């Protein structure tokens, strides 16, 4: 058995491998990978910007995202306080691809859920939390490191085509951010911001007008406020405008290009003035800033009721300013109450350069030196509104505007001519009132009473009876048989006359008469030339005046007496023989005519006429015409003699005394005598029924009756008329209410209709009064 010895262990040499193992590639690759990751991470980190906020409400460091067009482009890494602790600074890591665009025009705002008039926005942030939205244009600019966050999100994103302009207004009014801008009632833009100007004198709005409407903005474009309901009730009457519903909620503005020239387009950021109303914009009456206006204090005497703030100030019919303040003031010196009215005058409206307040003041001083004063005048008859008018009314001289320390200069005023003002309305009424209606009625009543008395007098009553008796006697006379023969005698007489006339002599006489007539015509011509006619006319007029004298009343009596005498005469039996005597006379006349002597008469007559003709010739030649004229003149003088006039006056006095006498016998007798007068008048009427007088009187009475009936019918119809007027007015009211509420015309129409209605009511009242008491209409009571 062999003890196998183990083979000697081979010489083992633990060789240290000097070769670097390939396994070391793994950590190298790892390092490379890690480094490349770190590098790419570093490369992908954008710049950090700082956004300053008032509060960090809803923001979380490391979570809150920055979004641009709703894509996350950054994240808030850190929230810290600003140095002065008055804000929060959010450090935001922006993504590198947008970082170059975040330059000075970038804006940031916090998106939160918001419910506004434009709608609900940011609803998704209710759950996801707020985020910061950013907006910038697509142009790379100089990088900016810190930004202020906006209070409100911009309404228009930066890449919206359009133009931003500014409008300035005296106050913020009803315009709110987001309010629409209209062009011809089409929404073309929005109000983006609203802020006070640096000096606090005005409010400035940023307005964005969308393309292509921004091309309509020219230097002549005017903006005005169309917020909600625009109702003005002033010196120019009432007017109302209602805008769109959105503008009711948010306000709104409109613009229009007044010149129509669209070739010049304004630059971005142009500043416009916002006028309060479209009318102001069109009239360009405005004055944005009180500092650019001349303010004057005016102290008016008496009430300033009817004057309103904003009311116009006019000079020579042109509006040069407006009333900006009305206040009360105690005048310590005089210890009395004074009303101070502040007016603002626009230098531009005065024809001076804009904002030239000093120039305007010196201009006003010159005006006041020339006598111009402020005065309250009626601007509108219906509303009673007052306006301030600069009017030529004061004394010339150094009465200038009084400049006062620390207060507005004082402009002198003159008292309001309110009497004249009221007169324009009340004058007519007063003149109607001043008409002597009562006296007129009194006179009419007296006239009627006098007529009554005249008719009722005994003489007048006896007149018809006497006349009848006279006529009767005349009839008896005429029915005498003897009278029947008279025609035959007359016929014979006429025949013999004919014979006479046919004779040569008579013919010659006729010819002579013709010559005489022509001479007379010549004479009359001469007379006319010598104004004899005029004198005669005057004489006749005087005569007529006398004849018309009231004394004629006596004539009736004398007429009556004459008639009685005539009756007596006619009833004398001697009259019965008269026909016979007439007959005899006629017979003797015939005998005379048949007498040869009478036959010779024509020749003699002709001779007489010839003598008359020569006499007329003498007249003509001897200026007798002038003498006649003188005689006529003397006659006229005689007629115009004061004694005659006195006679008339005395007669009038006598009549007056008579009237007094008639009125005197006592009121108790009056009805009785009136009744008697009426009955006697009735008697008279009956008696003279056939006469024209009675007929005419009856006609007149019938007409009066008819007139009364017509008046009554009219009065009866009046209520219906008034009703229909009222309903018309109401219908007109309804119509006006349903139609566009607005124009001045409408208002004035309404007012006019109301006045017509009032007038109708007054007529109605009058008619009822007349109906109840007709005599009042006549007696004036």
């Amino acid at each position, binding site marked *: 058995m062999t003890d196998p010895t183990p083979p000697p*262990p081979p010489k083992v040499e633990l060789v240290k491998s000097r070769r670097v193992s390939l396994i070391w590639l*793994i*950590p190298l690759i*790892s390092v490379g990978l*890690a480094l490349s990751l770190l590098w790419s991470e570093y490369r992908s980190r954008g710049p950090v910007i700082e956004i300053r906020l008032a509060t960090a409400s809803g923001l979380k460091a*490391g979570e809150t995202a920055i979004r641009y067009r709703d894509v996350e482009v950054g994240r808030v890494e850190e929230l810290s306080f600003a140095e002065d602790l008055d804000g929060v600074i959010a450090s935001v890591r922006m993504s590198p691809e947008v970082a170059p665009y975040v330059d000075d025009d970038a804006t940031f705002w916090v998106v939160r859920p918001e419910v506004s008039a434009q709608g609900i926005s940011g609803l998704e942030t209710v759950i996801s939390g707020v985020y910061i939205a950013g907006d910038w244009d697509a142009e790379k600019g100089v990088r900016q490191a810190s930004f202020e966050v906006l209070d409100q999100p911009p309404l228009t994103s930066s890449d919206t085509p359009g133009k931003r302009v500014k409008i300035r207004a005296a106050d913020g009014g009803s315009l709110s951010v987001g309010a629409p801008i209209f062009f011809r009632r089409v929404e073309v833009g929005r109000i983006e911001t609203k802020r006070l100007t640096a000096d606090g004198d005005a409010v400035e709005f940023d307005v964005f007008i969308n393309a292509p409407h921004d091309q309509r903005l020219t230097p002549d474009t005017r903006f005005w406020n169309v917020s909600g309901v625009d109702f003005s009730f002033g010196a120019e009457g009432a007017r109302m405008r209602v805008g769109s519903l959105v503008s009711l909620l948010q306000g709104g503005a409109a613009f229009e290009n007044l010149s129509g020239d669209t070739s010049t387009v304004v630059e971005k950021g142009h500043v416009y003035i916002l006028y309060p109303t479209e009318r102001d914009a069109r009239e360009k009456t405005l004055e944005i800033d009180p500092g650019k206006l001349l303010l004057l204090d005016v102290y008016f005497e008496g009430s300033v009721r009817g004057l309103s703030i904003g009311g116009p100030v006019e000079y020579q019919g042109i509006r040069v300013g407006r009333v900006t303040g009305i206040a009360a003031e105690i005048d310590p010196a005089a210890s009395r109450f004074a009303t101070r009215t502040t007016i603002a005058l626009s230098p531009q409206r005065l024809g001076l350069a804009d904002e030239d307040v000093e120039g305007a003041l010196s201009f006003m001083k010159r005006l006041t030196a020339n006598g111009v004063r402020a005065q309250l005048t009626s601007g509108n008859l219906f509303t009673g509104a007052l306006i301030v008018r600069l009017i030529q009314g004061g004394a010339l001289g150094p009465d200038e505007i009084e400049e006062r320390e620390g207060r507005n200069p004082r402009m002198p005023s003159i008292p309001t001519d309110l009497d004249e003002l009221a007169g324009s309305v009340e004058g007519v009424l007063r003149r109607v009132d001043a008409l002597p209606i009562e006296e007129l009625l009194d006179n009419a009543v007296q006239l009627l009473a006098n007529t009554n008395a005249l008719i009722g007098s005994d003489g007048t009553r006896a007149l018809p009876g006497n006349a009848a008796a006279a006529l009767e006697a005349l009839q008896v006379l005429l029915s005498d048989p003897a009278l029947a023969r008279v025609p035959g005698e007359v016929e014979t007489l006429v025949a013999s006359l004919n014979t006479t006339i046919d004779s040569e002599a008579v013919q010659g006489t006729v010819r002579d008469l013709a010559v005489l007539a022509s001479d007379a015509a010549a004479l009359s011509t001469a007379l006319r030339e010598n104004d004899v006619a005029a004198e005669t006319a005057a004489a006749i007029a005087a005569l007529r005046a006398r004849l018309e004298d009231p004394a004629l009343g006596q004539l009736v009596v004398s007429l009556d007496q004459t008639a009685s005498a005539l009756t007596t005469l006619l009833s004398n039996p001697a009259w019965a023989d008269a026909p016979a005597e007439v007959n005899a006379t006629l017979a003797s006349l015939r005998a005379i005519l048949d007498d040869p002597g009478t036959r010779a008469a024509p020749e003699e007559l002709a001779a007489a006429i010839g003598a008359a003709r020569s006499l007329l010739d003498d007249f003509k030649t001897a200026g007798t015409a002038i003498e006649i004229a003188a005689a006529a003149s003397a006659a006229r003088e005689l007629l115009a003699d004061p004694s005659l006039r006195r006679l008339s006056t005395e007669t009038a006095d006598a009549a007056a005394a008579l009237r007094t006498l008639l009125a005197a016998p006592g009121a108790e007798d009056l009805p009785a005598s009136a009744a008697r007068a009426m009955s006697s008048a009735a008697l008279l009427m009956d008696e003279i029924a056939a006469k024209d007088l009675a007929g005419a009187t009856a006609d007149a009475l019938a007409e009066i009756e008819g007139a009364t009936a017509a008046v009554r019918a009219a009065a009866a119809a009046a209520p219906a008329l008034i009703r229909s007027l009222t309903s018309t007015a109401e219908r007109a009211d309804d119509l006006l209410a349903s139609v566009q509420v607005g124009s001045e015309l409408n208002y004035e129409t309404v007012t006019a209709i109301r006045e017509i209605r009032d007038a109708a009511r007054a007529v109605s009242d009058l008619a009822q009064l007349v109906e109840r008491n007709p005599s009042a209409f006549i007696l004036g009571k």
Partner: protein
Amino acid sequence: MRTRDPHIEGPTALSSGLIGCEICGRAVSVGAETCTRCGGRLPRSGRRSTDAVWAWLFAGMIFYIPANLYPMLIASQFGSEQASTIVGGAIDLIDHGSYAIAVIVLVASVVIPITKFAAIIWLCLLVRGRGEASSHRALQLYEVVEFIGRWSMIDVFVVAILAALVQMGFLASLQPGAAAPFFALSVAFTMMAARAFDPRLIWDRLGGH
């Protein structure tokens, strides 16, 4: 002074000029490049080099850095995202009172990996002859490291499973963060380092001669 223990002292394969093939077990003389039976590669020096251990270890440590800097998990709830790193998540859990889970997360994600790095470094230094330690203790440490190293992957598994399960759209969703793959790689490389370590080196330092 080393104690001479007859059970520990004594001949080894290497001292006899032999090494065993790690694949088929054939004893091959030291110096052979490949196994005579299976053809598997053999370490020329008879022991695997610690170079590989160092290499894997470094790779794992490098990836461990981003794994802690980047968020591990991105939770989005109602649209709001919350990204948390490993340590940040653990702190959040502590804030919410979940101490046990926080401890688990911290142990699995922080304590174990760092302990592993330290243990492997220590073992490598030990076999280079630096430091004094019982070979039995070193071996126990090595076994613990190799066993427990895989559990560090629990974090990655949790992230993967949650990201797959919690996908409820807008209400809530979880997504793995950038740290997850780094952490996974880090754990994997550390495990590779542990595997690359040749435990026989622990005993070789005792010397067979």
